[in-house]
């Protein structure tokens, strides 16, 4: 019969998921199955998305869940609808907080990615010859999102290990996850610590890091005194690199939506059509892209 596969993501507006979908679509063309893309921002939407897929006669789906704790519900719903399920990006956990190992997963470890960001910052700081003790760090935070916490905490652990004093790491909570919110939150931190000359910044994604960079610009801190590293590597970051003059946004840790979108879709197809069980766990890594090399990195990762 016709193969129909769902691809459910938590934030359809985010470029990241647009890209995942795009690459999944490539897989669909290649293998000749039908891809159903559904955005589901919360647990309730996930439930109806799965029902919906069941109703249209899909055989399986891939999901990036809005919350990993939704695990048991998702598994139960899929079983009820007789759907095969795989997760991407974020791994489902049970009530006890342990991963649901039976569900095949391809993803990135949020903490690992955060650590890559921290490392990138440390390297750049060393290159500029700053003394970590005198550098201020802006943690653009969005603590209601667990992944976001894991990412920034990963970065912080690396900073601390490299001599950044905990007292110089300042929290800038964003009210929303857009650039303006990060900009406003970071501005307050900068103004509170007018005495600090050199700043580093990081956050949940590129938008967060960019907000902090904009804040430094608006209070008149020169790009030479700012090191911000984002996560994602989509347009917002690329635009920044394309600017004629370098800004404080030195790099971004790119995670490849190609693998996540394309490979998961192929794997699901093989599972549905040929009964080939996918690998239970595939972890991908992030890769740092700088102003100087972002084009190559993107090409390597198969984006562009």
């Amino acid at each position, binding site marked *: 019969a016709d193969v129909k596969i769902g691809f459910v993501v938590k934030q359809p507006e985010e470029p990241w998921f647009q890209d995942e979908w795009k690459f999944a679509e490539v897989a669909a063309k290649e293998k000749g199955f039908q891809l159903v893309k559904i955005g589901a921002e919360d647990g309730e939407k996930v439930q*109806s998305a799965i029902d919906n897929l069941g109703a249209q006669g899909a055989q399986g789906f891939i999901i990036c869940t809005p919350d990993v*704790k939704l695990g*048991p519900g998702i598994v139960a719903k899929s079983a009820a609808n007789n759907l095969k399920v795989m997760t991407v990006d974020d791994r489902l956990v049970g009530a006890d907080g342990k991963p649901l190992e039976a569900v095949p997963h391809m993803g990135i470890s949020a903490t690992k990615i955060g650590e890559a960001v921290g490392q990138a910052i440390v390297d750049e700081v060393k290159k500029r010859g700053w003394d970590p003790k005198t550098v201020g760090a802006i943690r653009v935070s969005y603590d209601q999102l667990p992944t976001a916490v894991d990412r920034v905490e990963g970065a912080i652990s690396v900073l601390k290990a490299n001599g950044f004093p905990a007292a110089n790491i300042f929290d800038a909570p964003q009210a929303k996850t857009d650039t303006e919110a990060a900009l406003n939150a970071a501005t307050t931190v900068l103004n509170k610590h007018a005495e600090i000359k050199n700043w580093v910044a990081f956050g949940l994604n590129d938008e967060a890091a960019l907000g902090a960079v904009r804040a430094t610009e608006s209070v008149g801190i020169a790009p030479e005194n700012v090191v911000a590293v984002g996560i994602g590597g989509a347009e917002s970051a690329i635009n920044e690199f394309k600017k004629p003059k370098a800004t404080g946004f030195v790099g971004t840790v790119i995670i490849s939506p190609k693998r996540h979108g394309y490979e998961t879709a192929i794997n699901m197809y093989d599972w549905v059509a040929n009964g080939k069980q996918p690998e239970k766990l595939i972890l991908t890594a992030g890769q740092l892209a700088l102003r100087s090399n972002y084009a190559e990195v993107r090409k390597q990762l198969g984006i562009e």
Partner: protein
Amino acid sequence: MQSLKKILLGEQGLVVIFALAFVLVSITVPNFLTERNMLGLLQSVVTIGIVSCTMMFCLASRDFDLSVGSTVAFSGMVAVMASNSTGSILLGLLAAITCGAIVGVINGVVIARFRINALITTLATMQIVRGFALISSDGRAVGINDPAFYDLALTRILGVPAPVWVMGLFFVLFGFVLNRTVFGKNTLAIGGNPEAARLAGVNVVTMRIWIFALQGLVCGVAGILLASRITSGQPNAATGLELSVISACVLGGVSLAGGRAAMTGVIVGVLIMGIAENVMNLLNIQAFYQYVVRGMILLLAVLLDNLRVSAATMSRR
């Protein structure tokens, strides 16, 4: 022809238009009119449907409640956490409903007794309660220990899942309360003219507090069912619910200026919202276009209803 016109333009005209649209969709959209999809559709509107019942009262009495989404999330958290810690699901449910009702009473007292604007008050409690939901679990979702909790959502009676039955029950119950009880009539009177209602002997302050308390309580029920359906308490659940619920009510002919409400209208409003989502996903409409389509459907629904009404009453304005 003449009688068709009469049906269309009558009190139940919205329902008829809706029914026509439903038939149209059933014919044109594949997989729509299957038992599975219908049940999925109904389950997808459970939260909106349940909360709409009391929002209808709130709007009918000229009030406004933005805190419903947070209250649903918060009481879901409470249900799960209290069940986990006491080991008794029943206690968990009681705790959740109580917490919901408390939020409602606080809203009601501040609004009715201290005469603070309902929009601002519930905007404030919306934030505060969301804060509590986040604080209580440090921003993380809380899993359910006792799998029996899931049964609340999974149990089927005559093939229909329990949450759908609960929603249906609430529709019947609140429809009855609105039309057949002094409480309902007084609600509408307050919305029509609060001062006149007061002078006619309606205890306006107490009534308004009751309406908010009920709203909170019902959010508690919705929170429990949601937690059970998604098998965890989620502090971020049900964000934006307030707008969906208010839209469903207004679509169903509840007047924001108070004094006008009907349960059938609200049910139709809720279903329109649910069907729109459902059909868009069945038709695999792209995410960004879904925004546009959703907006258009909303507009179209009110435009049609408006045409109908203005054709019916060549009213003086």
